[in-house]
């Protein structure tokens, strides 16, 4: 799965640690999400969408 996490985060000038704190996960998890090494669970995907104020399908797309 592809995602726009890094772009969305950069647009808001947030660090990985900032996003990790907002999501309640580790910085390593944010890094793994951004580099495509980990696909989030549905609850985490919803949380990401809520944090960025966008629908899930605007952030995550299929390969």
């Amino acid at each position, binding site marked *: 799965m592809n995602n726009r996490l890094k772009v969305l985060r950069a647009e808001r*000038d*947030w*660090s990985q640690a900032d996003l990790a704190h*907002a999501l*309640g996960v580790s*910085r390593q998890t944010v890094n*793994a999400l951004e*580099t495509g*090494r*980990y696909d989030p669970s549905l609850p985490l995907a919803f949380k990401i969408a809520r944090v960025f104020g966008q629908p899930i399908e605007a952030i995550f797309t299929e390969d």
Partner: protein
Amino acid sequence: MNASVDTPRPSLLRKAAVFVLLAGLGGAFGYGVATLTDGAMSRWEDELAVVMAAAMIGVGLITAFMIARRPADVPRGCGVLQVVVMLLAAAMFLLPVFGSAWATPNVVFGAVLLLVVVQSGANLMLWRTADEMLRRVMLETSALAFWAVQLGLFVYAAAERLGLVGTITGWGLIGLLMGIYFIASIIAAARRGLH
């Protein structure tokens, strides 16, 4: 939210310096362990247990160093628990080898059981505080290790039943299991970019 800071990409020179530093520390640690345990172990099972314990202490210390260098408040306490779990597991492997030099086998066994309870509690707390990716890594480690261990155990058991190989003690088997688990955890963590 404040200034944007990504995971830094270390330069090749810095990577080489860290590698040399860790190799030096590993060498010094290995030499120290070998000096301290010289003549104390007569069986390969004990040597394997000490190697496993040394590896766990090494990983625990490196994790503690990383936490001190880049502290993170989310998930709260997770990093410290990882260090505690590693160090307690190392103690569990060292006590049966060296404990009888200071106390009777019954006392040592009691201490081992106490450590098992405390370490299991710490492991449970780690599971509860971990975020979903760390839990996934733990699950994948367990699955990979189980698959490798049951495959290896079957091959060994068949060879032993046929009288082709000697019997391995339970102490030897747990050392081998820990070694396989250790390798499985490295593979599972590396797949998620954890190092």
